[in-house]
Each structure stands twice: as structure tokens, then as C-alpha cells.
């Protein structure tokens, strides 16, 4: 009774009752049937499209298995190709060579990519340099891989001598540097020499695994940069503020908080870039060039799986064709495994972050 003083019910006019909907009317039933049909038609269309897209991949796999599986044996993974005309042999050197080149490319490309991504996301907001970096990364991404190969060829394979006149006053400091005993496997096609005329830098002169690694590294950088930047952007600003508010310096905040929080995504980006360049052939044509024999040196041409597949496929020898089929099968299986690992890791990463 006391609340009546304030809670007067609103004026209730003669509100008309709306007629309840008749769900059994003929019109409603027709509507229903029509929607049912449309639903199923569109679902069918989607399934069909999916099959259309997946079919070629399945066809390729089936065909590769058909053509290449018979050539797969232990020897394939342990032997180098036999001399022309002789049967047997394998692509062990290509598999190892791919490994070496990819490791080098990762060592060069991943740190550069992540650093660029960190700069774009954390330090370069709104700055002109950041816009320039982003633009450059996008352009690099679009450079055709053969052009990349030719560019690196001209930089690291074609022999050039540069006169570093500005280092002349420091030539005595360079002596201990040049006396450093770099193991032959790690020597790269860039060497210094000092003579009476000055300090010289000699670049290139031969195909090299180093050049191949550099070419692939440059192709990895744009993807990694973009992914890193985007993943860092998903780190909530509140987390950064929490760290800054605790008196953590900015660089430490970026390293221990932002990067750590975004790391699942960043690692996924690196693995995707890796999987992409693992199958590249054109950049290696004029840089790594390929090698019939074992090679463990950065300073020499080296075999790589996609590269060798191309070379064998273009050759007139049946034995080499057989190797190419088997190599293709191995290559595509390896890439599928890599992508699957990426997905597993990514989904685990998402769950971890949300817990």
C-alpha cells in the first residue's frame, strides 16, 4: 500500500488484443516449405563448391602417389643421384640442401621480420618511416620470385669488387678481422682484401647456398612483418598499460609482455612463411643453382628439393624423371605436414591464451 504513492500504474486505455498468429494456415505452410527448399539448395551449392576446390588437390595427391610412390625407398632418402644411365640413387642431397637453405633463410629472415613488425606495431605508430616500411613490405611481397632470384643473382652471385675508400684509414683494424679463421663451411661469398690501393670488398663469383638463403629470407620477411604487426595489434592495450604502470620500461614491456602475449600468432606467421618458401624454385635457380653431389658449404652451389625436381623434370633421362615424381610427392607431403603442424600449434595457442 505504501508504494502506491509513487508506483501508479500507467493509464490503460482500451488496448486491443492482437490476434494470435495461425501457424497452420496455408500461407504459413507454403512460406515454410519455400524456406526449407532454399536452405537446402544453398547448402548443396556450398558443399558442391567445396568439393570443386578440394578435388584438384586430391587428384594431384592421388596422381603423385601413383607415379612416385613406387620410387620411394630407403635409398631415396640416403643416396645422391646416380650418374646418368645408372639406376638407383636418391635425392638425399636435395633434402639436406633444402634444409640448409631454409635454416639459413629462417635465421636471416625471421629476426628481421619480427623486428620490423615490432617497430611498426609498437614504436612507429603514425610515423612516416613506418608507412614507408609497410609500403616496402607490400611491394616485396608482390615481387615475382624469379625477379627476386635475378636480383639476388646480380647482388651476390655476379662478381663485383667494391672499393671501400672510407675504410682506408681503418685498414689496420681490419687485419685481425680478416685473420679470423672462419670454418670453410660457413664462409660466404663476401670477402675483404687490403692492398696498396685500398680496402676492397669482393662479392660473388659463384653460385652459393648463401645467396639462395638470402633470396628466400627476403621473401619471408614481408609475411612475417605483417603477421607480427597484426598479432601485436591484437594485444589489448590494457596489458601494456598494466606493465607500464608497474614501472616496466617500454622495451621490456614490448619484449616480455606484448611479444609474449602475441607469440602464438607470431610463430604461426613464421611457420606459414617458412612453408611458403619451402616450395619456391625460381629464386633458387640463379642463386643456389643446384648440385648433383653432397654440399655442406654456404659458399658452393647447393641442391634444393623443388629446384632439383625442376631440373630432373626438364631433363631427357627417365631415371631422373622417376626421381622428380618421387621428389614431388615427398615435397608435397612435407608441406602438408608443415601446414598441419601450424594448425595444431595455432589452435593450441588460441586455447592457451583464452584459459
Amino acid at each position, binding site marked *: 500500500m*505504501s*508504494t502506491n*504513492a*509513487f508506483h501508479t500504474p500507467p493509464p490503460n486505455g482500451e488496448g486491443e488484443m492482437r490476434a494470435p498468429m495461425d501457424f497452420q494456415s496455408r500461407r504459413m505452410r507454403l512460406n515454410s516449405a519455400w524456406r526449407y527448399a532454399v536452405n537446402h539448395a544453398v547448402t548443396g551449392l556450398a558443399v558442391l563448391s567445396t568439393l570443386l576446390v578440394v578435388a584438384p588437390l586430391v587428384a594431384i595427391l592421388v596422381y603423385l602417389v601413383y607415379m612416385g610412390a613406387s620410387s620411394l625407398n630407403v635409398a631415396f632418402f640416403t643416396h645422391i643421384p646416380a650418374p646418368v644411365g645408372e639406376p638407383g640413387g636418391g635425392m638425399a642431397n636435395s633434402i639436406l640442401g633444402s634444409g640448409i637453405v631454409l635454416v639459413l633463410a629462417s635465421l636471416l629472415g625471421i629476426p628481421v621480420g619480427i623486428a620490423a613488425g615490432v617497430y611498426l606495431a609498437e614504436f612507429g605508430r603514425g610515423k612516416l618511416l613506418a608507412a614507408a616500411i609497410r609500403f616496402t613490405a607490400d611491394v616485396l611481397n608482390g615481387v615475382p620470385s624469379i625477379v627476386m632470384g635475378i636480383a639476388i643473382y646480380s647482388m651476390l652471385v655476379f662478381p663485383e669488387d667494391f672499393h671501400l675508400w672510407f675504410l682506408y684509414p681503418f685498414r689496420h683494424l681490419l687485419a685481425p678481422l680478416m685473420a679470423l679463421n672462419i670454418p670453410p663451411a660457413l664462409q660466404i661469398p663476401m670477402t675483404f682484401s687490403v692492398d696498396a690501393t685500398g680496402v676492397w670488398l669482393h662479392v660473388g663469383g659463384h653460385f652459393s647456398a648463401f645467396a639462395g638463403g638470402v633470396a628466400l629470407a627476403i621473401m619471408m620477411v614481408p609475411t612475417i612483418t605483417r603477421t607480427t604487426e597484426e598479432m601485436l595489434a591484437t594485444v589489448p592495450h590494457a596489458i601494456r598499460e598494466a606493465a607500464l604502470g608497474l614501472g616496466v620500461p617500454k622495451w621490456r614491456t614490448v619484449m616480455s609482455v606484448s611479444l609474449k602475449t602475441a607469440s602464438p600468432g607470431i610463430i604461426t606467421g613464421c611457420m606459414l612463411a617458412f612453408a611458403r618458401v619451402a616450395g619456391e624454385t625460381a629464386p633458387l635457380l640463379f642463386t643456389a643453382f643446384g648440385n648433383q653431389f653432397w654440399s655442406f658449404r654456404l659458399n658452393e652451389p647447393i641442391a634444393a628439393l623443388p629446384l632439383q625436381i625442376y631440373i630432373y623434370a626438364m631433363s631427357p633421362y627417365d631415371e631422373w624423371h622417376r626421381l622428380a615424381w618421387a621428389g614431388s610427392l615427398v615435397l608435397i607431403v612435407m608441406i602438408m605436414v608443415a601446414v598441419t603442424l601450424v594448425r595444431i600449434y595455432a589452435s593450441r595457442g588460441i586455447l592457451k591464451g583464452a584459459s
Partner: protein
Amino acid sequence: MATRIKFQQNLDDLKERLLIMAGMAEQAIQRSIEAYRTRDLSICELVFQSEPVINRLEREIDQMALDLLAMEQPMAIDLRFILSVIRINADLERVGDQAVNIAVRIREMGAFANIELPVDIPKLASLSAAMVRKALQAFIEADAEMAQSVLKLDDQVDEMNDAAFYSLSTLIKERPELTPQSLNALIIARNLERVGDHATNIAEDVIFWVRGKDVRHNNPSRA
């Protein structure tokens, strides 16, 4: 753009209801004074009938104020206003009670001869009633100055009551056969003095509401 419209309306409702009750209390006092003048017992009846209405209004106003405190979280001037309303509410109810007491006394006096008493009850009564009127006017207009002036009038009322006490007690000693009428008159005078005190309280509550200063017990009238 005004905000808290509902709250404002509720505050206005509260004020209105309090003023209705104030009107009834004032009317009860006026009627009791009239009854004294005319010794008309039917007017006393009217006073008795108004009492349950005043009591009901007191309960309603307290409940409304309680609801507003609980549900609207009033602050500052609104909070002081509601607190003042609660206090004025209690004082008005007691004013109504005093009117009833006076009416009872008048009824008692009716059994005895109507003689001229050396005490000006009507003047005391009109002064007390004027205090109540002025205090309520100050409440309506939120005028602290007017309320302040009510406080000063209380001294007059107290003096008149003291004088009445003195002259009536002297009369009892000199003419003991007039004791019943004298005593009744004394009690009526005292009731009217109490009405003046209640009007003072109302004025003090208005000052608290408007200025935020608690001026109670600042004027000790008697040692």
C-alpha cells in the same frame, strides 16, 4: 534538460502531502481557538474527527520519505529536505495532538461556569497559530529569513505562558472555588506554548534544509 524527473515529482508529491497535513493541523488549532471563544462543543467534535486523518497522513508521509531515502539515494539539499520533512511531519502531528488536548480541556470547562479569567488565552492562541502559519510559509517558500523570525516570536509566547501561569496560580490561591476553570485554562495555555515550540522546531528544520546549518537548541529560553 532536466534529469531525475521522477525523483523531482516524488519530492513535489511529498511536499504537497506534507502541506495538506499542515493545513489540517492549522485548521485544528484554529478550530480549537474558536471553540474556546464560543464554547461550542460541536466544533470540538470536528477537532476530534480530524485527529485520525492527521495520524494517517503522518504515517503516509513517513513511509514516502523512507522510500525516497532507500530508492533515490538523495544527496545534499535533497537529503536535507527529506530529513526536514520527516521532522516537520512529527511536529505537525503533535500540533494536531495539542489541538485535541485543547478541545478536551474546553469540553471539561463546559461543565463549569463560564467566567472571565485574568488571562488572554485568545491572544496567546493567535500568536501561537501565527507562528505555525509563518513557519509553514517559510517552508513553502524555502525562506530561511522568515524562519529565523519565527524563532524570535517564541520568546513572546513563553513570556505570555509564564504570565498566564502566574496569574492563574494566584487566582487559585485567592479564589479556590474557581480552581477547575483555572486549571483548565492553565493547561490550555501550556498546550498553546507547546504549539509555539513545535512551530519553532519547524522553523529550525526549514533553516537546516535551506542553509545546511543545525540551529537547534541555540536559544535557551529558560535556565
